[in-house]
């Protein structure tokens, strides 16, 4: 299904996505949105892994499995992150990073 | 171990009660004979109300277009919510005596509560409950009825 699409296209898309994520990471204040930016970056990386795997090493599966484990780890990370965010929210009624400076856990 | 046994007991006990419930509904599903629906507009011909059914107050007229109401207004006074208005007129009899006679008997179906007091108190038994129930209208004015038919007159008491 990837016939006729050069590898670079995938990579460029992924790059743009990654840097949009970076932009979000830098400008956002709300922790949940920051988490969302991180997810964007992770996805960009995943696309890269898979594109490289498919185009450069079609006989192997490293990229595929890397992506799989990244997703799994991302899920675990998101779970813990959100647990922490919610907990912060319960304490400060606010989830802005800037206000969370005064966290005295 | 006990905990596990309890756990299983609870589980199967619960399932059993659920199945009992399903048995009941299942029974009715496979027994369409139990359906008790009366299909109203289709069964209009055969649909018969009980004879005491209070459909609406009506004033029976006999074949000479005569009714029994003497316009005494007892029903009007007794009706708890003023659904009846008896308008009477004075008529001169042949013998020169003035006599009160019914002009219009207004019955507000829209207000009647079908308590039956009017019928019980009427000394002449001039009004009865009729069985009709199909009264729905688009215009509220249609629900204010005149019970005596046009041109009707008082039925002379048969002296016995």
């Amino acid at each position, binding site marked *: 299904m990837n016939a006729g699409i050069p590898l670079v296209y995938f990579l460029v898309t992924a790059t743009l996505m990654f840097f949009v994520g970076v932009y979000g990471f830098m400008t956002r204040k709300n922790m949940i949105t920051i988490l969302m930016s991180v997810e964007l970056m992770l996805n960009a990386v995943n696309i890269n892994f898979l594109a490289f795997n498919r185009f450069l090493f079609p006989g192997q599966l490293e990229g595929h499995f890397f992506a799989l484990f990244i997703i799994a780890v991302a899920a675990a990370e998101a779970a813990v992150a959100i647990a922490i965010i919610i907990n912060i929210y319960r304490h400060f009624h606010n989830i802005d990073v800037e206000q969370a400076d005064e966290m005295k856990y | 171990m006990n905990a596990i046994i309890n756990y299983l007991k609870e589980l199967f006990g619960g399932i059993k009660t659920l199945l009992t419930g399903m048995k009941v509904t299942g029974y009715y599903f496979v027994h369409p004979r139990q359906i008790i629906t009366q299909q109203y507009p289709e069964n209009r011909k055969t649909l018969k109300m009980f004879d005491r059914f209070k459909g609406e107050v009506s004033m029976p007229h006999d074949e000479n277009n005569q009714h029994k109401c003497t316009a005494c207004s007892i029903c009007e006074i007794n009706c708890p919510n003023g659904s009846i208005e008896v308008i009477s007129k004075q008529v001169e009899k042949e013998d020169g005596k003035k006599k009160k006679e019914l002009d219009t008997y207004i019955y507000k179906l829209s207000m009647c509560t079908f308590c039956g007091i009017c019928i019980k108190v009427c000394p002449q038994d001039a009004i009865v409950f009729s069985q009709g129930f199909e009264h*729905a209208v*688009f*215009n*509220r004015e249609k629900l204010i009825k005149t019970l005596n038919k046009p041109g009707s007159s008082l039925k002379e008491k048969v002296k016995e």
Partner: protein
Amino acid sequence: MKYEDFNDNETLELFKQTGGNLFFTTVDAIINWGRSNSVWPLTFATACCGIEMMAAGASRHDFARFGIEVYRASPRQADVIVVAGTIVNKMAPVLKRLYDQMPEPKYVIAMGACAISGGPFYYNSYHVVKGVEKVIPVDVYIPGCPPRPEALLYGVMQLQRKIQTETIRNPRKQPDTFADTDNK
């Protein structure tokens, strides 16, 4: 049921006069068919008449045959509000609000003496609204206290007949003749 078997055909003819547009007849027919066969009532019952409304929904009389068993609790999804029971002053704004929140096209059935005119509470009562039409426009009146379920079904059929006179161009045109009637 045949046309002649219904009462109050005169008023229905009035509705027909105000409607009627040759161009859209077929479309109207289809839409009215849909609308009239699927009037979903709002679960709204205030008093005794509500019990008879429930009875009308139950197995013996089965509202569902007319396709109106889908009682919706939210006015957003309801087509008809069956005012079953007394409306008092405190309730009137609520009723109005519920009616306002229903989407067009919407219909109102006044069921029972209370909804039509205040019925048993017409005289000497300080808190009863004397007829829902003081609050919202009514399409069909069903007298009775309470009307028996068949009477409600009959009322619904009257409503269906009324819906069938609608046109898509100019829905729900009330003839001016009884814009403001009051109990005399």
